[in-house]
């Protein structure tokens, strides 16, 4: 039990990557708050996870400072503190080539992915730093290292998270708090199924063509899985993760060479 007694908040944790991380954390002994915008999906997730008082759902949207503050505060109210923050919520809509891109799409992607990470991190640090222990895990993407055409809003936001992570790691490195990124390859989660077709269209592809493109770039010639991301999140959240910080860990089947 590598996370016995720890308290974690996973934003966007009802489905997909966040859900897998929440399940892995519970399996390692942590108490976990999962979050999502839809109370129905939250109730469904709690039922499926069947973890009793080890898991708690907070509905809320990470697209505002107040929303992020409420999640961190709600976690502390429920379980007394926050040891592990997983900034997982994110996505993008309004994809278009840069020449045609509308302001709202870029702004929304930055708020959803990057500002939410900044806000939640700031509130979590205010609880972690005085206690000199914490783990912050930001779900970036292989597109936080590379860049594909037509999806610059997503690529830009994920790159921003990486830069933020590196700076923050240097600030807090001696205080028992680590901050890292996981950069997953494409995973066919619910959100990918929801948003993938529009992204594919902006890239001039079919949805299947988009998935095939990601797979073909990987050494394993397949997409990744949520379990592969969760095992890395567990490592980074563990006591042994104390010596790993400021790093962009690829879980991409050998796509990014760095």
């Amino acid at each position, binding site marked *: 039990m590598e996370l016995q007694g720890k308290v974690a908040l996973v934003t966007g944790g009802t489905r997909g990557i966040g859900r897998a991380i929440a399940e892995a954390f519970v399996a390692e002994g942590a108490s976990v708050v999962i979050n999502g915008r839809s109370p129905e999906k939250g109730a469904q997730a709690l039922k499926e996870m069947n973890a009793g008082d080890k898991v708690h759902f907070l509905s809320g949207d990470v697209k505002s400072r107040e929303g992020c503050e409420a999640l961190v505060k709600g976690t502390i109210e429920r379980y007394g503190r926050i040891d592990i923050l997983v900034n997982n919520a994110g996505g993008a809509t309004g994809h278009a080539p840069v020449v045609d891109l509308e302001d709202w799409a870029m702004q929304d992607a930055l708020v959803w992915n990057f500002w939410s990470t900044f806000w939640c991190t700031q509130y979590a640090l205010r609880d972690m730093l005085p206690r000199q222990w914490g783990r912050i895990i930001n779900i970036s993407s292989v597109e936080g290292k590379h860049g594909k055409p037509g999806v610059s809003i997503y690529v830009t936001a994920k790159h921003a998270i990486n830069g933020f992570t590196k700076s923050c790691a240097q600030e807090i490195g*001696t205080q028992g708090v680590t901050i890292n990124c996981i950069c997953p*390859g494409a995973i066919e989660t619910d959100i990918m199924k929801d948003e993938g077709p529009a992204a594919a269209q902006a890239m001039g592809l079919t949805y299947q063509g988009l998935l095939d493109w990601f797979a073909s770039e990987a050494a394993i*010639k397949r997409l990744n899985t949520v379990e*592969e991301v969760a095992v890395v999140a567990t490592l980074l959240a563990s006591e042994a993760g104390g010596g790993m910080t*400021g*790093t962009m860990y690829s879980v991409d*089947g*050998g796509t990014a060479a*760095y």
Partner: protein
Amino acid sequence: MGKLDGKVAAITGGTRSIGRGMAEAFLREGAKVVVNGRDAAKGEQALKEMGGGPNIAFFPGDARVQSTADGIVDFTIEKFGKLDIMCLNSGGVQNTAPVHMMTNEEWQLEMDWNLNSVFWGMRKALNHMIPRQTGRIIVTSSVEGKLGKPGIPGYAATKHAVLGLMKAAAKEVGTLGITVNAILPGLIETDIVRETGPESAKMMGVETYEGLLEMFAQESSIKRLNTVEEVAAAAVMLASDAASGITGTSWAVDGGTLPY
């Protein structure tokens, strides 16, 4: 239930330090482990300290010669029936010098110890793993696999080189159920660093051994050295079944030293 139940691992240079940390972690997670080292007495001592028993064995030999790399694979398969996890960990710095003072002999020693041993062991292990369509190869590189400090050109060059080897191999076997990754530890005060560090410090232009340790610590975000346990935890993760989608990566365990 361990994360490596039923797996068989071989670790070059596994009697002490990082390799030893990996061996102990693998054993705890249910694997059978073969460790290797030059000194048979140290090998026996290591087995004893790790509790002995049927799940651990020692293969003597110098990693700087091909017969050791080949031999540990053959020995492991003979002893435990297969090889699932190959940790190419042996390596170090010895008799180092700045480039303009380095002799061919010193250069060759670094090449054999840190690069050729990895190639030989990887080739031999892959020949066993490819027909079985399963395997994990974990190379111990270093933070110096991406950076480069004065006075240790052979070490920096070979630790960079193994990353190229790792990336190419990862692509070759990516669809065959085999992953190939490297771990890049920051400096850890292991036995071998205590033995060779004072001389390296001199060649790096640092006054004292403590100055060398301090230089590495200061470059990190955590302002301390790393530990073998931190490296071992990353190795367990990469060796596990759940890591089948993680390959070709340069896995930093350096307290936030590398910026990329």
